C-alpha cells in the first residue's frame, strides 16, 4: 500500500523513464531518460515527482488530488491514456516506461497541456452536481429532497486523447462533452427548453454524428463515464426527435 518512498520497498528496483520534454521555443520535442528507483507500489506520478525532486526541478507535471478525482494528471504511459497518480510504474518488456502528454490538446510545456480548448467543447452552462443514484434504498432527511453527487466525469481529457476522430479533427466536440449532454438529457427534471437546446447542440456535424464508433474513449475513461455508449444513446434520442417532428 505504500507509494512514495521506494527505499522502504521490499524489492527496490530501478526503472528507466523516457519522458517527453518540450519547452516552447524548442524546435522539436525531445525525450529525456531518467533512472528512477521504484518500489512495489510506486505510481507513475510518484516516479515523476521523484525526478522533479532529485534530478530535474524544471520538469513540468500537473497533479492535484493524487486519487483520480481531479483529472489533472492525465498522460500517455507506454502509449496508453492513464491517470498517472493511480497507474503503477510498470515497465514494458524492455524495462522502460515512456511518458508523454495526452494527445489532441495543445502542449504548454513537458507533460502539461492546455485544457482550455477541452473545456470549451462542453455545452454551457455546465453544472457538475446532480442527483445521486447510489444507495437507492436509502431515505433522506425530511428537509432534503434527495441526495446529491458530482458528475462522474473529472474532465481529464483522456477520452479526447484516445479518440481517432479527435486525432484528425479539432472541431469535434469529443466524447466528454457529448457524454455530458446525454447524461443531462437522461435525468428527470431537465426542462423542455433545456432538452431542446442540448439536442440542437448535439445534432451538429461537429457533435454526435462525428463519432465513428471506435469506442476507445470508453476504454480510456478512468471514471466509468462510458462516453461511447452515451454517444450512441444520444443518437437514439436525436433519431427519436427526428421521427417525431418528421
Amino acid at each position, binding site marked *: 500500500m505504500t507509494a512514495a518512498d521506494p527505499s522502504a520497498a521490499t524489492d527496490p528496483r530501478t526503472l528507466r523513464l523516457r519522458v517527453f520534454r*518540450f519547452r516552447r521555443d524548442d524546435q522539436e*520535442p525531445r525525450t529525456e531518460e531518467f533512472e528512477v528507483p521504484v518500489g512495489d507500489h510506486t505510481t507513475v506520478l510518484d516516479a515523476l515527482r521523484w525526478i522533479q525532486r532529485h534530478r530535474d526541478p524544471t520538469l513540468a507535471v500537473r497533479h492535484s488530488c493524487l486519487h483520480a478525482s481531479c483529472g489533472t494528471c492525465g498522460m500517455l504511459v507506454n502509449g496508453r491514456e492513464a491517470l498517472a497518480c493511480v497507474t503503477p510504474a510498470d515497465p514494458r518488456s524492455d524495462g522502460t516506461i515512456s511518458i508523454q502528454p495526452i494527445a*489532441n490538446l495543445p502542449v504548454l510545456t513537458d507533460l502539461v497541456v492546455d485544457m482550455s480548448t477541452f473545456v470549451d467543447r462542453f455545452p454551457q452552462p455546465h453544472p457538475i452536481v446532480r442527483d445521486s443514484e447510489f444507495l437507492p434504498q436509502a431515505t433522506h432527511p425530511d428537509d432534503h429532497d434527495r441526495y446529491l453527487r458530482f458528475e462522474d466525469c473529472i474532465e481529464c481529457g483522456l477520452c479526447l486523447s484516445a479518440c481517432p476522430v479527435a486525432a484528425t479533427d479539432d472541431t469535434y466536440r469529443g466524447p466528454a462533452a457529448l457524454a455530458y449532454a446525454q447524461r443531462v438529457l437522461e435525468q428527470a427534471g431537465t426542462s423542455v427548453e433545456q432538452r431542446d437546446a442540448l439536442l440542437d447542440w448535439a445534432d451538429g456535424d461537429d457533435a454526435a454524428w462525428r463519432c465513428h464508433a*471506435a469506442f476507445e474513449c470508453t476504454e480510456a475513461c478512468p471514471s466509468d463515464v462510458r462516453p461511447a455508449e452515451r454517444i450512441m444513446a444520444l443518437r437514439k434520442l436525436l433519431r427519436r426527435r427526428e421521427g417525431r417532428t418528421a
Partner: protein
Amino acid sequence: MSRRDLDEIRRVRREPGPVTRKAPGPVAWFDVRRRRTGQLAFSMNRITALGLVFYLYLHLAVLSSLLRGADAWNSFLGLATTPLFLGLDVLLVLGLLVHGLNGLRVALVGSGFVPNRQKALFWSLGVFGTILLIYSAIHVFTSD
C-alpha cells in the same frame, strides 16, 4: 529587463502550443498500437473501404473489356480462373465481410439498439464472418 521577461512568460501562456498527435494526420486512423477492438475495427473499416473502392474501379475496368469484344472478355476469363486470381477473390470476400459485418455492428450500436455490447458483437460477428470466409474460400477454389 524584467518587464520584457514577464511579457514573454504571459505571451507563451496565451498562445496555443503545438498539439501532440499519436501519429501524423490520417495515419492516426491506422495506428492500432496499444489499442483495443474498437480502434481495430475502425482501422479495418477504413482499410477495407479503400480496398473495396479500389476493387470497384478494377471491376469497372475489367467490365469495360466487354466493349472490346468477346476475345478480350474470354482472355480475361482465362486469367480469372488462375489460383492467384482465385486467392484475390477470397481476399475480396474477406474485405466485403469485414466491411459489411463491421458496418452492421456499427449500425446496430450506433442506432442505440445494442448499446453496451460492441465487443461481443465484434467477436461474434468476427467468428460468423470467419466461418463464412472459410465456406466461401472452399467454394471459390473447388467449384467449376
